């Protein structure tokens, strides 16, 4: 029998192993899934940003080179004389504006930086630009594209200037272009909720408006550190984290930055991880609950099996003890019979001698003779009583094979009832019988089975008399088919009943509640042994002042 601590231990082991075994692959699958999902999402987010940066960078570069080629076209198509003519310049500008409406003005400079011709909204002719940085650069490199600036006009614009060397006489053409067009182009980039694109120059001055704040020409200090790598992803560790993709444009003078708040970029990841956590918690609760239930069930089954095993063990011990006792008793009885035989002979001898003495008148008549006679008679009686006991013991402990044959229960039981009917009637006992007709025959020694049933009947009658006297007794004999083949015979009386203490010992040899000399206490143990030998079982149920039921199960003979 397992102890309480053992059950606690088993419960612990079963519980943890049942929880851990499925949990490990589950957690493994979840984490692997999570890892691949997040990395692939990160990769796609980043490549998206990279693509946006690259595409838009190319677009800006294309825009700038288109504008440059617009100007270049003019530079190479017209002579300086034509361009310095105010009317012609106006015409050319008109055509240029048709080509691209963002052109604001168009001017021509000589090699000293004097504005020699101009068409546009301002009066700039004659102004000297000789010292300006842009002029110096265009003189040196033949071309110049400015950063975006507000200038006199207070509108964001930039200039493109190109130099032409005309037989040692250099001149410069310069056009101002409103940045509205590419500002819009860049500003309109939308990635998710917070994804945006903007351009800064090498000094970190915003060249386009930034949707998340940061006006044109404003300084964007934080972005400066991203100016170095060509295309890089980093996270800005300020109040918000960003995912960046950058690309150089305008011959590495400007940088286009596409960025998205990290929280936004990884919204799907976060959503998925939250879902995963919820699922895990729900799963965990379910599993714990289920495991708990299963563990309890296992423990319950285990306990039940343990109990049944224990019961079986006790039954086996009980049965084997009965057999041992029976054998011992039989041996004992057999040995007792020999001295009994001697006592018997001695008694007979004494009796004979005494009667001869009396006959020969060698003993004078006295009361002692009568007493002696009585004693001798008593010896005979007691030997007889002993012999009855030993005979019963021997019956109980018999080991030899009884004479077995088929017994038809449905004929057999009424025959037995007939035998005891008279005795029952005398004591006012009503016998009810309920014998099923579909009973299969059983196999055994008919006289033994007879002995069993008669014994039970006699006990029942005694119990009824004890409670009811000579009226009101009832004895129900039932026989039915069990499990489609086995025979169950039950005998219920409404007698005095047996108390639980005695009920436990009822099949033990020599156990009797009857007064000394009235019973040997062997009857039921003999019955038990007989039924056991027939491969059957015998059970008893009793309640004080309600009655007793003996039930016999016998296997069918097939």
């Amino acid at each position, binding site marked *: 029998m397992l102890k309480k601590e053992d059950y606690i231990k088993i419960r612990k082991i079963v519980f943890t192993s049942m929880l851990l075994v499925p949990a490990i692959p589950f957690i493994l699958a979840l984490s692997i899934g999570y890892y691949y999902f997040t990395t692939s999402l990160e990769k796609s987010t980043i490549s998206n940003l990279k693509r946006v940066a690259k595409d838009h960078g190319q677009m800006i570069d294309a825009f700038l080179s288109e504008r440059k080629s617009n100007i270049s076209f003019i530079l190479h198509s017209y002579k300086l004389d034509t361009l310095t003519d105010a009317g012609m310049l106006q015409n050319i500008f008109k055509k240029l504006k048709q080509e691209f409406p963002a052109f604001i003005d168009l001017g021509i400079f000589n090699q000293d930086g004097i504005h020699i011709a101009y068409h546009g909204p301002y009066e700039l002719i004659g102004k000297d630009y000789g010292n300006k940085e842009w002029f110096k650069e265009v003189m040196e490199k033949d071309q110049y594209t400015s950063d975006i600036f507000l200038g006199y006009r207070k509108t964001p614009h930039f200039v493109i200037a190109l130099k032409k060397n005309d037989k040692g006489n250099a001149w410069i053409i310069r056009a101002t272009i409103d940045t509205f067009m590419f500002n819009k182009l860049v500003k309109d980039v939308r990635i998710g909720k917070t994804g945006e694109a903007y351009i800064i120059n090498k000094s970190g001055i915003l060249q386009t408006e930034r949707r998340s704040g940061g006006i044109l020409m404003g300084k964007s200090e934080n972005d400066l550190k991203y100016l170095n790598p060509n295309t890089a992803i980093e996270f800005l560790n300020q109040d918000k984290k960003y995912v960046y993709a950058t690309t150089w444009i305008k011959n590495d003078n400007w940088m286009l930055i596409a960025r998205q708040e990290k929280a936004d970029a990884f919204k799907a990841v976060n959503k998925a991880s939250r879902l995963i956590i919820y699922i895990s918690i729900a799963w965990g609760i379910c599993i714990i609950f289920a495991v708990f239930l299963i563990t309890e069930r296992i423990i319950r089954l285990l306990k039940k099996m343990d109990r049944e095993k224990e019961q079986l063990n006790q039954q086996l011990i009980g049965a084997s003890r009965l057999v041992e006792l029976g054998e011992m008793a039989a041996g004992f009885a*057999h*040995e007792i*019979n*020999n001295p*009994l*035989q*001697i*006592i*018997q*002979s*001695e008694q*007979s*001898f004494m009796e*004979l001698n005494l009667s*001869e003495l009396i006959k020969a008148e060698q003993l004078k008549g006295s009361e002692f003779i009568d007493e002696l006679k009585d004693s001798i008679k008593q010896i005979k009686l007691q*030997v007889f009583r*002993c*012999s009855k006991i*030993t*005979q019963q013991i*021997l*019956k109980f402990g*018999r080991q*030899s*094979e009884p004479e077995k044959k088929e017994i038809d229960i449905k004929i057999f039981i009424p025959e037995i009832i007939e035998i005891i009917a008279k005795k029952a009637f005398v004591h006012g006992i009503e016998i009810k019988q309920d014998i099923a007709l579909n009973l299969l025959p059983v196999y055994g020694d008919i006289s033994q089975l007879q002995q069993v049933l008669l014994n039970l009947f006699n006990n029942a009658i005694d119990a009824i008399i004890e409670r009811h006297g000579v009226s009101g007794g009832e004895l129900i004999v039932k026989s039915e088919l069990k499990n489609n083949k086995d025979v169950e015979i039950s005998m219920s009386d409404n007698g005095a009943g047996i108390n639980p203490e005695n009920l436990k010992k009822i099949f033990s040899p020599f156990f009797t509640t009857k007064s000394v000399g009235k019973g040997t206490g062997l009857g039921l143990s003999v019955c038990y042994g007989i039924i056991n030998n027939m491969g059957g079982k015998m059970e008893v149920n009793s309640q004080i002042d309600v009655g007793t039921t003996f039930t016999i199960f016998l296997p069918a003979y097939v």
Partner: protein
Amino acid sequence: MVKLKMMLVDDEERFLQTTSKLLMKKGYNVITALSGEEALEKLKSHNINVVILDVKMPGMDGNTTLLEIKRLYPMVEVIMLTGHATVESAVSGLQSGATDYLMKPADIEDIIEKAEIAFAKIQRLEEKIRSALMKKFMKSPREILKNSEN
């Protein structure tokens, strides 16, 4: 009238003594034997009619002794005395040729009664043999001569 001559066989000496004294007082001719071997030995020299034979004895047991007696002296009747109340052992005894069986402790009256019945059986049997022989002799008196020649 031929008198019943009995032999008691048992390993209990006191039983033999007392019972034989009792039987002798009642007028029977009794000898005793303490074992199966002794019984067979004594049967050689004594003309015994009925043997009261204990089943359980050390050495040669009752059933073996019974078989020997029946083989050597078919006209001797044997009554088994058993300490074991099983019908089976008695039945096996009866099947081996015992006349009857008695259960220990057996009353002296029962012993005498069964022995008398057995003896009567012997006498009936002997009577039959005698009358059969008589008939034979009546038919051809020469047989007597033949017999006496043998």
